């Protein structure tokens, strides 16, 4: 279930090695999972893997790669760019011979255009930044420090910014300010109400919901079946 995967360096240097969670039994349908980001990644991790377990039981392989800079990666998060993560997602799709993609929340901004599949509750770059910057402003205010979105974004664009403990580089901030997920041909949006409950990323603490995992897996299984 736990593996590693390699991302070749763009300049021909040493590849970077990242972790991979996979249910790979060499089956015909192989779904690349691009998870939610940052704080939402933690809140949705168990839900995401629960969906993968259901796909496995239904005879569908799935692959959840760590992107560089995330989880146990040796690469610093501050060095990551949106373009670099898109490249990593494309390489992951090829490496795992993925036939479909399930992109979750902000992960939808990375969905390889060549794969059919699903964007679950897709999140745009501006909305993601807005929420993270707001959290920082609220925390700062509690500490008696006054910050504004405009000031923080200006700093972020020039030197990067730490938001909710996540250190994002200047290139990542600038790219996220305008990044929108786009449904490529063969890709379909899944809105939260289709899962019959509130989004688990909203929860103050990580939680799970078997009925929602069933619902998301069912949408995929029914399409592939």
């Amino acid at each position, binding site marked *: 279930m736990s593996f590693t995967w390699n991302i070749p360096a763009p300049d021909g240097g040493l590849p970077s090695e990242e972790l991979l969670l996979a249910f790979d039994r060499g089956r015909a349908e192989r779904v690349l999972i691009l998870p939610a980001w940052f*704080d939402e990644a933690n809140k949705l991790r168990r839900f995401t893997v629960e969906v993968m377990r259901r796909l496995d039981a239904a005879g569908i392989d799935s692959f959840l790669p760590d992107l560089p800079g995330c989880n146990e990666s040796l690469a610093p998060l501050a060095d990551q760019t949106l373009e670099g993560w898109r490249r990593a997602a494309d390489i992951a799709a090829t490496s795992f011979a993925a036939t479909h993609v399930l992109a979750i929340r902000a992960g939808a901004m990375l969905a390889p255009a060549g794969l059919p599949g699903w964007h679950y509750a897709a999140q745009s770059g501006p*909305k993601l930044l*807005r*929420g*993270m910057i*707001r*959290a*920082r*402003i*609220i*925390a700062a*205010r*509690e500490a008696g420090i006054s910050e*504004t*979105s405009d000031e923080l974004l200006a700093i972020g664009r020039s030197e990067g910014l730490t938001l*909710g403990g996540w250190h994002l580089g200047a290139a990542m901030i600038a790219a996220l300010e305008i990044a929108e997920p786009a449904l490529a041909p063969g890709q379909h949006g899944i809105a*939260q*109400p289709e899962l019959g*409950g*509130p*989004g688990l*990323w*909203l*929860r*103050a*603490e990580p*939680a799970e919901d078997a009925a929602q995992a069933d619902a998301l897996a069912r949408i995929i299984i029914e399409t592939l079946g």
Partner: protein
Amino acid sequence: MNITPIIDGQLDEDALDQQLQTLIADVLGLDPAQAAAFDSDSGLFGHLPELDSMAVAGLLTEMEDRLGIVIEDDDVDGEMLETYGGLRAFARAKLDPLQTPS
């Protein structure tokens, strides 16, 4: 779950309570009956340990989507976040800007 933005002024008091209580239930993982017990004095930010700045930011962003309002940096202060009543008064003022004394 109702995520359709509501046109300004068309939300009566009970409907606003229901929207906000559902939202808080969604954030805190309560069942709707528990959230319905929230009253004006119920403490929020600073009173509920699980409601940290990230969770509050998520709550405000979801409030924008569900109520069809825009919350500015300057709107967010201790008073609006401290109690359910504060949050409710804030939402009401955003929905009916002309009817609320500034």
